[in-house]
């Protein structure tokens, strides 16, 4: 058995100037957490949502994530529902999808701007650069569009 990978920063309040990522876990929780930790090491504030419903709930309170990173499987209805919700509430918010079925993702109606799709296995460093670019190109919005929910950075 591998030791479980701690979600080391999910309970810590994120510094205000760090890019805020909301990572929606896929089936491989261990790898998702490893990704989250590596991104945190590289200066991102990463929150983890275990599914689409939790991610939607997270978008109902400030501070809002700057980027949504999804590892949801294509077969899960959550991905398109989540994308629709995010597009409605945070127009222009970058969405990054990490998937083993890129063609199936591209066939889905996920709105504009077109999500960045990364095919597994991902090159971590390429992903990191893409996230930084996305954050730079899409300035943070300070005002919530919905009534703020109670503060709870961890959805787990």
């Amino acid at each position, binding site marked *: 058995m591998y030791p479980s990978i701690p979600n080391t920063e999910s309970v810590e309040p994120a510094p205000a100037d760090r890019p805020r990522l909301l990572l929606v876990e896929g089936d*491989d929780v261990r790898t998702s957490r490893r990704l989250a930790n590596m991104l945190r090491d590289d200066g991102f504030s990463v929150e983890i949502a275990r599914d689409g419903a939790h991610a939607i709930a997270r978008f109902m309170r400030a501070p809002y994530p700057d980027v949504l990173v999804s590892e949801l499987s294509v077969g899960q209805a959550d991905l398109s529902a989540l994308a629709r919700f995010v597009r409605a509430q945070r127009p222009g918010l970058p969405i990054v999808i990490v998937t083993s079925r890129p063609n199936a993702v591209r066939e889905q109606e996920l709105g504009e701007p077109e999500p960045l799709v990364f095919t*597994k*296995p991902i090159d971590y460093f390429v992903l990191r650069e893409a996230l930084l670019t996305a954050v730079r190109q899409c300035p943070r919005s300070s005002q919530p569009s919905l009534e703020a929910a109670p503060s709870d950075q961890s959805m787990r």
Partner: protein
Amino acid sequence: MHDETRFEELKRYVQFDDHDAALLLRFRDVARPEFPRIAQVFYDRIREHDEAHAVFSSEEQIHRLQRSLVKWLERVCGGVYDDAYCAQTAHIGQTHVRVGLPQRYMFTAMALIRLELAAIARRELASDAPPTESALSRVLDLELAVMLQAYKDSYVDRVRQAERQERRVLDSALARAEHRYVNAVEAARVLIIGLDRQGNIQLFNREAERVSGRERGELVGQPFLAALCIEDDLGRFPELLERGLSGAAPTQAIEASLQARNGKLRSIAWSLTFGGDAPEDDIVLFAMGTDVTDSRAMEERTRQHEKLAAIGTLAAGLAHEIRNPLNGAQLHVSFLERAIRKKDADVEMLEATHVVSEEIKRLADLVTEFLDFARPKPLQMKEIGLFKLCEHVVTLVSAQAAKADVKLRLDLPSSDLAFQGDAAKLTQVLLNLTTNAIEACRDNGGGNVCLRGRRNPRHVLLDVEDDGPGLAAPDAPIFDAFFSTKDGGTGLGLAITHRIVSDHGGTIDVTSRPAKTIFRVLIPIAHSENLNP
């Protein structure tokens, strides 16, 4: 010596002589006043018989005929009985035949006249009556014999005419039947080859000419198997042919190849049928064949597509299952690599993580390539220019060619050609083929590769030719997935190439021998037009 005429022969038979002629001449003077009355009686009797009367059309005609009968009586008792006399009698007989007087009335009418004239002789001539009656009897028999000859001649003519007509009908029917059979044989979309007892070709129909590209004139008399290079996989054809020639029961169909004039093999489904043992016909066996080359190719393509569809379904699921653990492995390797770098960078450990990372990438690329093959994206059909396509490919591979000491040549037609296709996919096809060609030459120490574009009536032809060592086994299933003779090759390049070409509705073929290998791609032009007519 004088040849006896038929009339003279008849006179000799009834013993009619000059004495009879003299008696009749004397009798005419006595009987002449009675001739009109006899003519009247004669035609009155005819009026009593429908069929005899039917030959008359009017009273005027009867009067004319009565006058003719009087003249005839004058002639019969005229004392001159030569060939001219006979000819006149024959003419009268022919007239009777022509007007349709039934033959039986000749006898009855002659009997009536005979009785009338005999009565006059008995009444007027006393002691000369008996010999005169005999003379009358003989001359009237002669008249009858000559006139009846006209009936016989007419009958013979009619029979001959009927025979000729029947022959004409038969000949016509025969010609029609022959024409139909010849047309059926010639127009049939089936190879029909007639063989004599020795197995030599005696009949070679149009379809056989079309499929083989050979003319019947050059093949008639040639041995069937050898002349057409007919071979089947199991080598059973010669034995079946032997059995067929000996009249054995019809053989089951057998598929065998036939070599056409252009050297290409056509697949033919043959059946051999014994044609009978008619002594008047040389042909004893019919070899009938259907060209199944195209349908076999179609079946093969269908099988290939079905196989690919099944592989595609499997691959899509498998790719998902493989990419997920690969992702985990890759991410953790990246984590390790970064951790090692942070801790004074142990070079060997860094290299180890790098190797693992590269291997994971290679595996991921393989999965992606396999998915491209098994689950290709739909074609993006647009108008493509032949020149641009080929020039682009040459640009892409020119550096690789130079490095391999391969001279790359582009051979294009004088004017450009536009056709429908997926530019990216067709670029991939030509890249695969030219890269393979360059690698083949490179392994041979260099060489020449030519990318050729041409227009066929309905297709764009794209040839990639090299002078490398050639395929090790030209019959190997090189277009099958995972078939590769290259070290480190995935065996998917040509399979993907084949698939792209097939998806375009085209074909890909290869001919190979040492120093000359040509991959030929044919893509339908569809609705394209010349760019520079």
